């Protein structure tokens, strides 16, 4: 293991890939997210992720909760009274897009929301953001995986090999973003719709079965092992765009080469800031941050913790050499202590 903890690296070549393609990633521009959740749906559908709860969480329009074993894209909704925003940034003058718009019933002003998500009325604002695995340059989950199930792909992403993982669960507390999770049986019950029993979706024999969907509960795949976003490794290999980015109707989720996305992110942030959106900031775009930069970066309109993201994540293995040193000292202390206890007397 070479020590790459303090300098930016290309993770794929670092992991031993030769002639690796350019590193791939996401830029999630939350300033144009409309909270439609098409990404969540596309992800679930493409990756055949089981249902993991259909309840009302009482958190605005977010009934998904958080990222987890069976939620690889999660759209966060924040309703903030604007009086309570952290900055009193000048509100950008809304650009008239010429689109029809609808306000709340009884609302006098129907000109729609401003470009950066602040309502014209100014009583509250929406923040929406589609969260995903960050595919860290220095990935804690990958570092701590004892089986080698988690690996670095040629695209610089981090992927679980389902047939290797033995469900030790170590990656779960290691991830500084709380992304990866072990799939539990309870959360993995799926309703058999006739396509989950091994029959490929859309098979002719099933087409006429539209009447009543059988409500048999079947065991989902990959129960007991760690699961997370793969950046659609299968689609990438076929030269396709990941399902979420493909489905995003506003290009809030942009897929591409990480280097290029990073430039785009900076340009977009500058654009927003010159338009008066002083709260616009990049998250995960700095190759010198605690995780060596993310493969999936974000343009946010408030501080990361508002979106449920850690403000200053650091890969835990950065401290590992020091930890091993302390453990070695402690081991010596135990050895010495045990020896001393035999020298202490003849009883």
């Amino acid at each position, binding site marked *: 293991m070479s020590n790459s903890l303090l300098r930016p690296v290309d993770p794929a070549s670092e992991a031993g890939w030769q002639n690796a393609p350019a590193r791939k990633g996401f830029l999630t521009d939350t300033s144009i997210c409309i909270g439609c959740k098409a990404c969540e749906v596309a992800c679930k559908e493409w990756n055949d992720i089981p249902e993991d709860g259909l309840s009302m969480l009482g958190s605005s329009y977010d009934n998904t909760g958080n990222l987890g074993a069976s939620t690889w894209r999660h759209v*966060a909704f924040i309703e903030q009274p604007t009086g309570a925003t952290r900055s009193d940034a000048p509100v950008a003058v809304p650009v008239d897009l010429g689109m029809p718009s609808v306000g709340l019933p009884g609302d006098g002003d129907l000109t729609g929301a401003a470009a950066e998500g602040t309502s014209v009325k100014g009583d509250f604002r929406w923040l929406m953001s589609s969260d995903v695995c960050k595919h860290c340059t220095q990935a804690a989950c990958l570092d701590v995986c004892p089986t080698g199930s988690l690996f670095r792909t040629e695209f610089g992403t981090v992927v679980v090999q389902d047939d290797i993982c033995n469900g030790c*669960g170590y990656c779960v507390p290691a991830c500084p973003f709380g992304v990866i999770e072990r799939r539990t049986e309870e959360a993995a019950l799926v309703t058999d719709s006739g396509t989950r029993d091994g029959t490929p979706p859309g098979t002719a024999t099933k087409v006429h079965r539209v009447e009543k969907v059988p409500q048999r509960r079947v065991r989902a795949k990959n129960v007991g092992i760690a699961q997370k976003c793969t950046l659609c490794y299968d689609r990438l290999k076929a030269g396709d765009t990941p399902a979420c980015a493909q489905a995003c109707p506003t290009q809030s989720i942009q897929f591409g080469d990480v280097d290029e996305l990073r430039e785009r992110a900076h340009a977009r942030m500058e654009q927003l800031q010159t338009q008066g959106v002083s709260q616009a900031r990049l998250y995960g775009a700095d190759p010198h941050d605690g995780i060596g930069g993310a493969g999936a970066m974000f343009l946010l309109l408030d501080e990361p913790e508002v979106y449920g993201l850690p403000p200053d994540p650091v890969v835990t293995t950065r401290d590992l050499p020091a930890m091993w040193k302390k453990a070695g000292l402690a081991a010596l202390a135990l050895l010495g202590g*045990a020896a001393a206890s035999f020298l202490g007397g003849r009883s």
Partner: protein
Amino acid sequence: MSTPGEAENTFGRWPDDNDRKGRRRRDVQAAAARGLRAGRDQLAGLSERAGRGAPKGGDRRHVMGSRPGGEGERAMVPEATFTSYYDRPVVKASPWKADIPAYFFLGGAAAGSSLLGAGADLTGRPALRRAGRLGALVGILLSMVALIHDLGRPSRFINMQRVVKPTSPMSVGTWILSLYGPLTGLAAASEMAELADLPRRLPRTLRGPARLLVFVGRPSGIAAAMVAPAVASYTAVLLSDTATPSWHDAREQLPFLFVGSAAAASGGFAMIAAPVDQAGPARRLAVGGVLLEIAADQRMEKAMGLTAQPLHQGKAGGYLRIAKVLNVIGTTGTVLLGSRSRSVSAISGAALMAGSALTRFGIFEAGQQSARDPKYTVVPQRERLDRVSGSSEHAGVAARSRR
């Protein structure tokens, strides 16, 4: 807030809502508690209903207006103001159950027992040697059961040996145990062969191998004792090498606390299993272990700051308080009467073992608690950022949910 009955009925229409458990329900409670949507009729109704379903006990701390830490807990650090997303955790708590802290205890006890066994072997204390060697085997066998049981796919346990990864404390631990286990087994087998007097009682043709088995007892026992300290201390790195706030922040002192706890547990076991005239080293090891544990704990909590809070709260706080009492009882008994009364020695030993086990459960649980509360992730990171940028821009602006 009052409950609009109509909204409750509407709510009941979702068939799934009443059988959701765990994470989801907690989310609802947390969201309900925030009351952010007060004034928006329908959602307020949802919140209210969910709030009524909240447990009466310790989980009420998210309720609007109450302080974190809840009933009767005194915060060691001034109240932190911070923002979170509906009070949801940022990092995930490990999926590990009681298996893991139980393994820490058993593995630690086994490691210390190996050390005592080897020392007793070299200094001519046969009863202590027997206790050490056999205790180590039992401890490590139970450890393996716990470790395998904890896996999501126990049948794939062997995948642990696919790779050697210094960046993964669990991989390192696997290889340490792969070395330690067989050596311990050999030492214990030798002990049993000698106990059963196999070299004399077996048929003539098998006496050679039996004598060989007895002979390898000492080298394998000493080799096991050389690996044993690593078995006892690596587990601290296993916990600290995570994003779990109270484990990671304990990284400097946790190895010392863990080896101290291992010494106390193994000393306690030998005090139960060996007669007092041979258990002197066990008593000294146990008392030394408790002292090291206390010293490490003091320094650790000072270094941790905010993330030391969970060590005094909830289940973790309870475990650790009882552990301290048991340690004091065990140590006092050991020092005062340990060398004279076998029964006091055994009781003290049992107290020390129980204290060690509860210490492991307490540390484990504290980490789990710290992961479930976004405060312990967000506040230290935000403070770090603010220190770096040197700005007070962030202090107390209203968008942060005050708690």
